[in-house]
């Protein structure tokens, strides 16, 4: 990701009086291009009834800058994606140091953890999702054409 443009876009939302609505990560399973899997991270903002988001594809190990300088409340989400997904967020205003959820299994939402769980399920004959997801554009590229969110007139944006 381009750190400077990203932070500039975030600052635009901040100056525009938007409220941080959500930072969400989704693990994508490993593919041939990305053997370690990847993360689809969304930063969503709300102003009046408009809902917009920025989207980045992150590879494990990539550095993701904290947006807590513009949006102080981001620390909770950032600590969360760091702890559950293992995304390397840097420069947080409040660093809870992995003490937010304290799950028994470390980084349970990461692509490798999901894969391990699904493979174990498959080996044990437990019905669960396939460790090899169907091919096709379901990630960021797909999002642009996805239907608009239901609850408000929105302008979904992809970065």
């Amino acid at each position, binding site marked *: 990701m381009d750190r400077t443009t990203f932070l500039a876009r975030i600052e635009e939302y901040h100056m525009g009086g938007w409220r941080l609505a959500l930072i969400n990560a989704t693990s994508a399973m490993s593919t041939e291009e990305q053997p370690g899997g990847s993360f689809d991270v969304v930063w969503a903002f709300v102003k009046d009834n408009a809902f917009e988001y920025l989207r980045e594809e992150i590879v494990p190990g990539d550095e993701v800058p904290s947006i807590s300088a513009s949006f102080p409340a981001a620390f909770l989400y950032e600590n969360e994606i760091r702890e559950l997904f293992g995304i390397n967020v840097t420069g947080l205003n409040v660093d809870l140091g992995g003490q937010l959820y304290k*799950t*028994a*299994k470390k980084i349970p939402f990461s692509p490798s953890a999901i894969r391990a*769980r699904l493979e174990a399920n498959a080996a044990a004959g437990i019905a669960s999702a396939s460790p090899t997801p169907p091919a096709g554009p379901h990630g960021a590229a797909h999002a642009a054409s996805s239907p608009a969110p239901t609850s408000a007139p929105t302008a979904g944006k992809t970065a």
Partner: protein
Amino acid sequence: MSMFSRSPWILHYDGSSCNGCDIEVLACLTPLYDVERFGVVNTGNPKHADIFLVTGSVNERNIDIIQNLYGQMPDPKVVVAVGACACSGGIFARAYNIQGGIDKVIPVDVYVPGCAARPESIIDGVVQGIAALEEKRKKRAS
């Protein structure tokens, strides 16, 4: 009458429940169900409690808390597991962070089924808990 010979005080702890059973436990205390008429009092202090009402299942994080609270309660004591999650893990048994019912950590005397458990069954569970308490007391005296 042995069943109501004592007024048990209850300690409630929410393991990892969805709140449904917790609010039903609280509803038992309020005017429609009003368990206080039986002398049942909800206390926040484990050292005052006779009956330990646990809702929700066990996850890695709350094992210590549950054991701690149980350990702080004076003998004799009774544990009532309220709701499907406390009994067996319930709908969340398949979640990665859930270990199962309360009986994985502490001995359970009464199981109250339901998702969420109805106030009537919670009261019934407590009443059975009183009987179990009475028995434990007798055993200790003999």
